[in-house]
């Protein structure tokens, strides 16, 4: 079913009786061409782009819980392509371009909102580093602007300009950056993939791989064995655990990263702001909550919950940066499991096991990479699809 203005009006007037399921609840088939483990943002976008390209392929996404229960549903929703290194910037810029056309592409409003991001500058050395980065962005075809202190003040008069421990000296701005409604992204991809025939199988936990002669044949799951020609793993923080079942040790640690949201407030923050002298970044959701975060808790964890010192630290940085938020209340905290690679670089690759592919190690960058990653994987899988 396609969403359209007509459909929305017609349903409103007839009691919403005509809306069907956003996706089916299929039973797993005995075998697929592609199995993607992980029904999060990366798994769903990969399935979406694969199914859009290879119409005949039999594709399934296996999710141990509910679709979007991992980091796609527990991040701070920021999209941006303000990266420095040549391995990163063009990729994130590709992703950014996809974000810009995403909703029209999958006919689902993921509320992509390009309200801009400002990385604040507090020292001369930081300005040099951000200038280098801004130039790298422009050279890769993205947008960037270097803001003076007064320009930052004009945009965000509520920041602490008067008695700050680390005075604001300017900022690096990317206007095309912003936020997207994280759940909407997952659902949009899921619905799009389902419409192309992808089986989205929830409550289906992978418990092992069937590997023979160095080649993957399928996966053992809580709902029985499922055969596959190719298996892609996109399970973020669970990568170590899942790949361990295939006998692989990874250059990845799983860490908890907390995120925070305040009670709803009338609009007060224009875009995304990052503090350059403490661990803090913030934006405001369409519903009005201040969505903010900081550093990882800093120890290996699979617990999806964090501890008090980081909450205090983030709030302290927030207060130092924008003392007007003092009387807003923190409503909810949650934790995601980040797949922190040892050198900060993601891994998108074949593995020594034939037919088994891994996408992991995104550290904090996974959400904004969601569309680009899916497209990239489609391209790399496509190379070998014919074979």
């Amino acid at each position, binding site marked *: 079913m396609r969403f359209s203005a007509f459909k929305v009006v017609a349903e409103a007037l007839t009691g919403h009786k005509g809306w069907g399921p956003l996706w089916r609840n299929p039973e797993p088939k005995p075998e697929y061409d592609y199995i993607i483990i992980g029904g999060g943002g990366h798994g769903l976008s990969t399935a979406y782009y694969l199914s859009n390209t290879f119409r005949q392929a039999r594709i399934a996404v296996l999710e141990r819980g509910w679709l979007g229960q991992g980091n796609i549903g527990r991040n701070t929703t920021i999209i941006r392509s303000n990266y420095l290194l040549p391995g990163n910037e063009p990729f994130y810029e590709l992703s950014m371009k996809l974000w810009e056309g995403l909703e029209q592409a999958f006919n689902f409003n993921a509320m992509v909102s390009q309200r801009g991001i400002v990385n604040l500058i507090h020292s001369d050395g930081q300005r*040099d580093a951000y*200038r280098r980065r*801004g130039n790298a962005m422009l050279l890769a075809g993205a947008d960037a602007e270097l803001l003076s202190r007064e320009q930052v003040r004009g945009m965000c008069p509520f920041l602490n300009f008067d008695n*700050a421990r680390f005075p604001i000296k300017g900022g690096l701005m990317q206007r095309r950056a912003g936020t997207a409604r994280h759940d909407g992204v997952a659902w949009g991809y899921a619905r799009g993939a389902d419409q192309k025939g992808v089986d989205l199988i929830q409550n289906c936990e992978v418990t092992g791989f069937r590997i023979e002669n160095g080649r993957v044949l399928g996966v053992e799951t809580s709902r029985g064995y499922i055969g596959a020609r190719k298996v892609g793993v996109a399970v973020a923080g669970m990568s170590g655990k899942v790949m361990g079942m295939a006998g692989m040790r990874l250059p990845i640690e799983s860490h908890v990263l907390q995120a925070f949201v305040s009670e709803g*407030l009338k609009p007060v923050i224009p875009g995304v702001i990052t503090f350059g002298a403490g661990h803090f970044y913030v934006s405001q959701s369409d519903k009005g909550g201040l969505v903010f975060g900081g550093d990882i808790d800093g120890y290996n964890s699979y617990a999806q919950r964090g501890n008090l010192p980081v909450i205090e630290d983030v709030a302290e940085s927030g207060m130092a940066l924008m003392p007007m938020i003092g*009387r807003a209340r*923190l*409503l909810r905290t949650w934790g995601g499991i980040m797949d922190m690679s040892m050198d900060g670089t993601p891994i998108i690759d074949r593995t020594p096991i034939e037919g088994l592919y891994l996408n992991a190690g995104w550290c904090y960058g996974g959400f904004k990479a969601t569309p680009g990653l899916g497209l990239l994987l489609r391209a790399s899988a496509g190379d070998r699809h014919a074979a």
Partner: protein
Amino acid sequence: MARLSGGLIDRTKTLSFSFDGRGYTGHPGDTLASALFANDVRLMGRSFKYHRPRGPVSAGSEEPNALVELRGGARQEPNTRATVAELYDGLVAKSQNRKGSLSFDWLAVNDLLAPFFAAGFYYKTFMWPKAFWERLYEPMIRKAAGLGSLTGLPDPDSYDKGFLHCDLLVIGGGAAGLAAALTAGRAGARVILADEDFRLGGRLLAESHSLNDAPATDWVAAAEAELDALPNVRILRRTTVWGAFDHGIYGALERVSDHLAVPRGVRQTLWRITAKRIVLAAGATERHIPFRNNDRPGIMLAGALRAYANRWAVCPADRVAVFTNNDDGHRTALDLMAKGVGIAAVIDSRPDVRAQGDYPLFAGAVVSDSRGRLGLNRIAVARDGRETWIECGALGVSGGWNPNVHLASHHRGRPVWSEVLHAFVPAPAGGPPGLTAAGAAAGEGSTAGALASGARVAAAALSDLGFAATLPDLPRAEDAAQTLTPLWHVPGEGRAWVDFQNDVTVKDIGLAYQENMRPVEHLKRWTTLGMATDQGKTANVTALAVMAELTGKAIPETGTTIFRPPYTAVPIAALGGGDSGEHFRPRRLTPTHEWAASRGAAFVEVGQWMRAQYFPRPGETEWRQTVDREVLATRRGVGICDVTTLGKVDVQGADAGAFLDRIYCNAMASLKVGMVRYGLMLREDGFAWDDGTCARLAEDHYVVTTTTAHAGTIYRHMEFCRQCLWPDLDVQLISTTDAWAQLSVAGPQARALLERVVDGVDLSNAAFPFMACADLTICGGIRARLFRISFSGELAYEIAVPARYGNALMARLVDLGADLGATPYGTEALGVLRIEKGHAAGNELNGQTTARMLGMGRMVSVKKDSIGAVLSRREGLEAETRVLVGLQPVDAGDPVVAGSHLFAAGAARNTWTDQGWITSACHSPHVGSAIGLGFLENGANRMGEVITAANPLQGQEIALRVVSPHFVDPEGGRLRA
């Protein structure tokens, strides 16, 4: 209506307050909500989406509707629950989330458009045409969304943090909590009793029950007095324990001054409580029963109506009805009747119940609809297919009680379903270790049950800890078993609200079901159920039950949403605690700070340090003039700079040399006593990490320096190497960064100047050559260390004295060297001097560069193992051809800008043709133009080539010549002079 009799308010005092600009009065003991009820105000807010008129449904922190902006000006506090805001004289509150007045809200038009705003509607629409989302729809939605507002002004109040430790933390000061605290307090355990209310007693304050045949408040007062008198018990009133963290750590918020117009001292204190055992006695929250139009002001939880009547002596109307599926609803009718309130009807969904007093009873009936634009005036009662309309101004609804299991579930453990209570209770395992629920939080709803369970649970916890606890004598109390027949909602047409604040109706849940958003987390996210400021305290279980009905599954199979901290929302200022402005982080001051300040120095933050940036003199109008003068004075005469901020680590022990050999990539064991060597440290992955000097003061004694930025991390790394990698080496480490003031004395006259302060030491080139070091005394006996090292390329020394003398030494050197041109210089000149000399600093040692890039590849010894040596030789790093070069503009008037990217002249400008970047740049008075350092592909072989520096960010393209990074004295003659 007028106040009822009784109540726990102080009628001898009158407090004035205002709501939406109108003045009212109340009494001490009132909340804002109770005082407004006493003034016949029922309408206190508007809902989030449809802007429906709303009044309080509860009498506590679970309140979804009665949210106000409390106080004004910079103290304005949005989304404050009127039901827990303690009344004080002069209180000012405004309603929020409205356009126009509270009774005439223009945005109530949304309610008419409600068919368009069903669950998940925004995901399906606002996409056409594409550009309209960001230009029109989203700004419109954002403007309409949100609840209360921030003023944009800095919070003027102060907040405090603290740390408490105890044997037993009791959360909640009702019947169960008091019994637990008494049990533990009498046993001698260290007890903290925390309660969110401003008065201890919990539900005991809201009920008409007696204890030992006396008012329950008598027993509460006696218990409170006893606990107050015990030195091992601490009562935290107005304190919400809001989060359960690992290993018995709990976050608690004490509202120290929120009951005052202006805080006396701190407003709130954030306590981090570390407890060995925890009793969760947080009570229970009543649930409502959705029916058509069940959200009008005046429709409340039955227990809340009772609380308002008993504790606050108010009732929102003089004719009241009750809708219940359990006996508790009847209690409300009886209590209200006892206070003289008229009972219009009790509607009980159970067919075979009897009235417990003289009131009209509709057994086997339900409330099916209501009327009243801004407040309830009648309800429809449906029985056997017939609808009867009954006039009433308030309706108490009771659907049973949900134990407050939140804290027991903060570790992601799921509560379990009780078929007896028809509610979730804490799971016996999987909760925070050491925590046990008691009283209503554990499903022990009767007063007697709560008292007994509190005492029992506390005694068990204490016996775990080795205390001998005896169960106290508990008062005689009400012991009625709660019986209910579940009724989760009244089926029928129209909208029946489940989540009041976010306007989620039974139909919305149906739509989520229809659209396959059935897992509870999908339901929550699709409909926004439970995501309001009350976190769904009155909504979630009911919603699950509705979904369970639709799916045909049992409620526990349908699941529970995950409970996460905080239990109730916590002000960000309180979490941030303490100081946030200038005191956000400690400031470190150099030993010469006073002197520099007296000379009018400009200061700059370098990490946590405040360093003198430059020392302007009268007549210098621009900082560049000052810096140029400082640089030239140093190169021509002698300059003095405080370099104390470099990290200093004292390394002693028989194996100190061997140890340093392993942590530096170059050799250190071979260093002669009395000499200094430059050292480079790598990370184990082969990248350059930090540099500094290593001075050997004795056979078994070195002092090494680190960069200012890495002092802490390098020390940690050195301890790691010492304790974890090579524990067999005889090495002792200690940081001495702050102990010594260290001044750089640089320039051709440096020796002449130092000779004037050292006590009889020959500083001649022969006696004290380049890279020599010594312990000596200065100024007639002050112990000092002298190092002949140079960052500037000049003849230079660093002299260290105990930090207390640093300030005076600086002054002395500048005075004594007046005839030599002695000039203090700051970090700017320091930077220029080192760029002119081609020394790497933070911009070059940024963690992404290698020894080879820095031109120091050959320093990495292959004759020994050291941290990072092996991986520094790996393929990828060996292939790196970008190396540090000097850069000079072809046109001497052109700027050189750090952060510009480097391209071959005439090459395209993109990521793939990018050949490097400028790391550091400055104006060089020595060269007479701007100069820079940068990493350039194949740079070593491109000397003299003209390349382009692109800085598209600022629209610059500059032609630069590639030169040696050593702009000054490349042969090093000066520093050896």
